[in-house]
């Protein structure tokens, strides 16, 4: 068995090469962007960069010790990803511009300056009519940038006990105790003789 990965029940899609719509998952497959390093924006201008930072902070806001996604470089990570995947640049730029336009209509101001409830309302409206899958793309990349960041992983260990470093450095468990099988060793054969 291999482990199921990224299985989101409500929206899971089986990838299909050759589909006319851009599938962001296929586009980013060969793009590796290191996490946890400081970088500047390579695709987005400052105004759009501010909007995207507000967007990712709305997806994962700060809480107590846990930073907001925008504080661990999620917006820059998304920018760096679409820098490596030119077909996605237009998707991201269009999405930011649309969100900005919707914010103007709803609040009369910029998305980055809206209140958290207003930002949420704008993003919900955007996600409801998103033919290019820009919303799930930004969300997935935000989650990647957040949950692979050392700062976040450290906080998760302190707050939930989930020890991330074991996956890298190894762990220790008691060997299997055969005495647990005492009852099972009394069970008669169950397999069907064929």
């Amino acid at each position, binding site marked *: 068995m291999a482990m199921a990965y990224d*299985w989101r029940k409500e929206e899971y899609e089986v990838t299909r*090469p050759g589909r006319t719509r851009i599938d962001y998952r*296929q586009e980013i497959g060969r793009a590796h962007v290191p996490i946890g390093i400081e970088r500047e924006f390579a695709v987005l201008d400052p105004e759009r960069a501010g909007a995207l930072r507000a967007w990712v902070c709305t997806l994962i806001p700060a809480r107590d010790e846990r930073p907001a996604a925008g504080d661990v470089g999620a917006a820059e990570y998304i920018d760096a990803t679409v820098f490596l995947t030119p077909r996605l640049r237009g998707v991201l730029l269009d999405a930011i511009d649309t969100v900005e336009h919707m914010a103007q209509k709803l609040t009369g101001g910029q998305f980055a300056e809206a209140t958290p409830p207003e930002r949420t309302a704008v993003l919900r409206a955007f996600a409801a009519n998103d033919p290019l899958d820009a919303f799930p793309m930004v969300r997935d990349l935000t989650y990647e940038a957040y949950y692979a960041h050392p700062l976040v992983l450290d906080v998760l260990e302190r707050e939930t006990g*989930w020890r991330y470093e074991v*996956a890298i450095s190894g762990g220790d468990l008691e060997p299997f*105790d055969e005495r*647990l099988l005492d009852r*099972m060793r009394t069970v008669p054969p169950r*397999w069907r003789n064929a």
Partner: protein
Amino acid sequence: MAHDDERDVLIIGAGAAGGAMAWSLSRRKVDVVCLEQGDWVPPTLRPKNHLDWEVRARRSWSPSPNIRQWPSDYPVASYGDDPISVFIYNAVGGSTIGYAGNFWRFTPSDFRVRSLDGVGVDWPIGYEDLAPYYTINEREMGVAGLAGDPWSPPREPLPLPPAPLGPQGQLMIEGCEKLGWEWWPTEQAITTRPYEGRPACDLKGYCPFGCPQGALATVDVTYWRKALRSARNGVDLRTNARVREITLHPDGRAKGALYYDAEGRLREVRAKVVVLAAGGLGTPRILLQSTSSRHPQGLANSSGLVGKNLMVHVQTFVIGRFEEPVQAWQGTWGGAVSSRQFYETDPANDYLRGFVMSINPGWSPLNLALQVAPWGANHHAAMDAHLNHEVVLFCCGEDLPEERNRVELDWDNLDAFGLPGVKTFYSFDENSKRLGAAMITKGTQLMEAAGASGVRDFGISPALGWHLMGAARMGSDPASSVVDADNRAHDVSNLFIADSTSLATGGGVNPTSTIQAVALRCAEGIWERRRELG
């Protein structure tokens, strides 16, 4: 076009079956050449060598060839009511490089499905024919576990002791004991002690994402190390070799294969015997590409069944959430403890055949967040509720062969050398749907008995595509099968098809152990008939 002198045996594919065959034949000093579409996996590509392994697992290590897009990959499109989420790797070691090492033997009833239950087909061989090869394979791969499971026939001791239970295994045992269900430590291809030059597993977990030290028995570190060890008798393994077609002599026997090397140059290999072991999709792809006036529908396809009767198992995950932390980060992925309580057909059920359940640690943070954590204000609360509070029960059940479930060539989506991709078509039948529903019901019952305060599951669709079997199946009748009991193609006397495609039915467990046992038996048959074969 360059070609070599005729070799004894050409093996196409260096995965679970091809690696086992190459080892078996080369130790008898057979002159073996192996063409592998992919390459060796370098350590830097294995996600678990990096802190951001969860992200790499979604990209460069994605089990979908459409996403990772290695140079060796071909496109795979999925159709049907239950389209397959394909999990394959094209590399030395094949898809074992991304497996978890569950290493079950089939049971005797798995080979007699038609006779016992009136569905599917019988194999032309039985458990007793494969038993000696299971034993050899467990020794060579290095399998951990304990003999004595009442759901298996008596067998020799395994070479390595079982993996540690971990907190998840303990929970599963508690649940089983409360319900009076039977359980047993899972047989896993993992070194629980140092073994044949491989170090002991140090429990990094999340095994499919590239075991860094070779404790997981992927075929690149087991059979291939041995098969290549001897300079004199070692196998001639050629990587980055994309087979375009199997060629024929005028008398209809297989002559060899045409392939593109890494630079795109067309090459030819000739051999007395050709073995196809390119995997559940790769093998029918090559057969269907190998058309000629003699075989207009593809090689070895007089039955019309090449590519058909594809099977994937009915699979799901049932996830229990516990109020107390469960140390969900550690333990082997593959599952330290399993239950085959519902493995055999029970007339009281509304379905035929059965399934296995194996307990695993919980999901890692990114994977979990993508499953359960909504964006926005409730994001962190959802992570608090699930991270380190869940265990994952893997459920796998039998899915019977049906002609409508199939592999076809996809000429609209080509690989880097203009060769076609594949299309898969898959829909579960009513029996599989009922079996899937029972898996979820029983898995939920088990989690609740273990103390879970909440249970969720993945359903059974889309179909998890780890176990791709049956698309060139074994049988006695050339009209209803592609190869005979010895894996020899009915239509081509010196062509053998010796991988997962030859499995007539798929049992209800992970198939790697059986795939390799079949391959080792096939290799021995080739050796015994070497004078007849050339």
